[in-house]
C-alpha cells in the first residue's frame, strides 16, 4: 500500500507538528505557525473523504484504537479501508505557497536567532539547539500567545541533536559526548530521577549531566534508556532502568542509570551506523546489503548475562542500496534509511518505498498521539508529508521493521 502524500510549497528549513499546528522555519529567517487541521480540512471535497483523510493526516492513532480492533476481524471492513487508502494514495494533494497564507496563525522572526540545528516540542515547549546553545520558548498558548515572547536559554553548549521524553532532554554533543538536561517541575523538584546522586555521571551545569564521553551524532529513547548513534565511531546504548521506592504508602519509580553497552556488545560484525528507538535497534550492514535487527529488553540489562537484553531478530534484506548511508530512523510504520540521493522506507508490512531525492531534513513523530504515521520531508522547494497507513493491518507482535504499537 502506497502512502498518501501532501505537498506544501515553500522554501523551508525545518518543521514540527504539534496539537493541530504546523511549525515551519523558513530560509528567509522567519518562523510561521499554520492551522494544520484547517489545511487538512481544505483537502476534503465530500463527506466520504473524512475518514481516510482524517486518519491519514490528523488522527493517526484512531485506527490503532482498542475498540476498533474487533472491526478489523471483519474482512469487508478491512478491505474497505485498504481500498480507500489506496484510492487516496493516487491523489495529488497540493498546497501552493500562496494558499498556505490562508492557514497562517502567526508569523514572527525566528525566535532562536539562527536556523536551528535541531528542534523538539515537548509539553507545550519548543526546544531548539543552535550554535548559540539550547533554548526553549513556550508554544500553543491562546490568542496573543501562540508563541511565547520570552526565549529561555538553558545551556550554552552547542548540541547537535535532541529528543525529549520522561521530563528529560537527551542531547548529542558530537565529540563532547552524550548529555541529559532535566526539566524540573514548577516546584523545582524532579521526583523521577536518581541521576543527580549518581557519581558515575558528570554534572556540567545545574540540570545538565554528561552520560558518556563517547562521540554522539544523534540520540533517541529506548524506553528509559538512550541509544546514541555516531557517524564517526561506535554507537552505544546508555541503559537506564526504573527503581521502585515506597514513600508515605505511595509507590514511585525513579529512573536510574545502569551501564553503557557498546555497539560491538549489541551487534556482531561490522561497525556500520546503528540507531535505536524503544524495543528495536537497527544497524546497516554494508557487506550483506541488509539491516540487522535487535530487540532490546530493558529489564534484562542489569542481569549478568548481557545477551538476554539484546535479542537477535536476524536481518532485513535491503535491495535499494545506492550510495552512502546518511542516516536512519524508526517509526511504527517502518524503518527509515537516508541515502546520499534517496530516502528508503522498509515498511512494517515487508515492503520497500523509496523517495528518489536528496533531502534537506526529514522527521517522524512516533511520540505523538495523532501524527505517528507521518514522514515529513523537506526538500529544496517544498515540504512533503507522507502518511503511511499500512501498519493498522499489521500484527504488531511479529514486526521486524518498525516499533510495536501497544
Amino acid at each position, binding site marked *: 500500500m502506497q502512502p498518501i502524500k501532501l505537498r506544501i510549497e515553500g522554501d523551508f528549513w525545518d518543521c514540527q507538528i504539534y496539537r493541530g499546528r504546523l511549525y515551519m522555519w523558513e530560509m528567509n529567517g522567519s518562523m510561521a505557525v499554520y492551522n494544520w487541521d484547517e489545511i487538512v480540512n481544505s483537502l476534503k471535497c465530500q463527506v466520504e473523504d473524512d475518514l481516510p483523510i482524517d486518519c491519514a493526516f490528523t488522527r493517526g492513532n484512531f485506527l490503532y484504537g482498542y475498540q476498533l480492533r474487533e472491526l478489523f476481524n471483519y474482512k469487508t471492513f478491512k478491505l474497505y479501508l485498504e481500498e480507500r487508502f489506496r484510492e487516496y494514495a493516487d491523489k495529488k494533494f497540493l498546497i501552493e505557497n500562496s494558499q498556505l497564507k490562508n492557514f497562517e496563525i502567526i508569523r514572527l522572526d525566528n525566535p532562536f536567532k539562527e536556523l536551528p540545528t535541531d528542534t523538539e516540542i515537548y509539553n507545550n515547549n519548543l526546544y531548539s539547539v543552535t550554535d548559540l546553545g539550547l533554548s526553549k520558548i513556550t508554544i500553543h498558548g491562546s490568542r496573543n500567545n501562540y508563541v511565547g515572547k520570552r526565549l529561555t536559554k538553558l545551556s550554552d553548549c552547542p548540541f547537535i541533536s535532541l529528543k525529549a521524553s520522561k521530563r528529560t532532554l537527551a542531547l548529542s554533543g558530537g565529540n563532547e559526548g552524550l548529555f541529559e538536561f532535566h526539566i524540573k517541575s514548577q516546584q523545582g523538584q524532579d521526583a523521577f530521577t536518581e541521576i543527580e546522586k549518581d557519581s558515575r555521571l558528570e554534572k556540567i551545569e545545574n540540570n545538565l549531566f554528561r552520560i558518556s564521553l563517547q562521540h554522539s551524532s544523534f540520540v533517541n529513547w529506548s524506553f528509559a534508556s538512550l541509544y546514541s548513534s555516531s557517524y564517526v565511531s561506535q554507537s552505544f546504548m546508555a541503559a537506564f532502568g526504573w527503581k521502585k521506592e515506597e514513600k508515605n504508602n505511595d509507590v514511585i519509580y525513579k529512573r536510574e542509570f545502569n551501564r553503557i553497552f557498546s555497539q560491538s556488545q549489541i551487534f556482531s560484525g561490522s561497525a556500520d551506523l546503528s540507531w535505536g528507538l524503544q524495543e528495536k535497534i537497527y544497524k546497516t550492514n554494508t557487506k550483506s546489503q541488509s539491516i540487522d535487527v535487535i530487540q532490546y529488553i530493558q529489564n534484562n540489562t542489569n542481569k549478568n548475562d548481557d545477551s538476554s537484553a539484546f535479542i537477535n531478530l536476524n536481518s532485513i534484506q535491503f535491495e535499494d542500496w545506492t550510495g552512502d548511508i*546518511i542516516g536512519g530512523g524508526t517509526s511504527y510504520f517502518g524503518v527509515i534509511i537516508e541515502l546520499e540521493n534517496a530516502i528508503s522506507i522498509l515498511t512494517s508490512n515487508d515492503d520497500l518505498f523509496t523517495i528518489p531525492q536528496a533531502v534537506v531534513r526529514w522527521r517522524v513523530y512516533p511520540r505523538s498521539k495523532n501524527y505517528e504515521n507521518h514522514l515529513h520531508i523537506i526538500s529544496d522547494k517544498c515540504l512533503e508529508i507522507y502518511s503511511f497507513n499500512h501498519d493498522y493491518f499489521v500484527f504488531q507482535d511479529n514486526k521486524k521493521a518498525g516499533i510495536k504499537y501497544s
Partner: protein
Amino acid sequence: MCIINDNPILIDDKEKPPTFYQVLSVHRRTGNSEKSIWTISVPDEVECFRYSYSSSWLEETQGWGLKVSSSNKLEELGQSDQGISLKIAKFRDDKEEKIWHGYPANYREKIQDKPPEEILTKWMEAGFISKVQRSRIVQRKPCNL
C-alpha cells in the same frame, strides 16, 4: 616565493589590511592522531587562506576556507586521521595577533569544526554548497560536497 613551514608569511590583499599566515608542519605530517592533514600543496594551502581572506570568510579569531575548482566544484583539501576526505578548512588566530594558521576541518567529528551560519549562508548564496549540503553539514551528517 619560498614558504617555510611554521614561519608566518605576509598575505597582502589590496582591499584589506595585511595579515600573516603560518603553515603548520603538525598538519602536514601523517601519524598524528587527532590531527587532520592537508593533502594539497603548501602554496595551495596559502592560496586557500588568501581566498578566504579576500572573500571575507574570516571572523575575529576564526575563519573558514574552500578550494573551488574552475567548474565551481569543491575539491579535497585534506584528510582526517581516519582517512576521511575533507573539503572545508578552518583557520584560527588564537592570540589575536593577525597570525593565522589552518587545518582541514572535520565537521562530522568535531563540534567546533562546523562553519557558523553566516559563512554557510555566504557559501550557499555563492553556489558552492546546496541547501541539502548545508543542512547535512549543520546536522553533522556525511555529505558528498
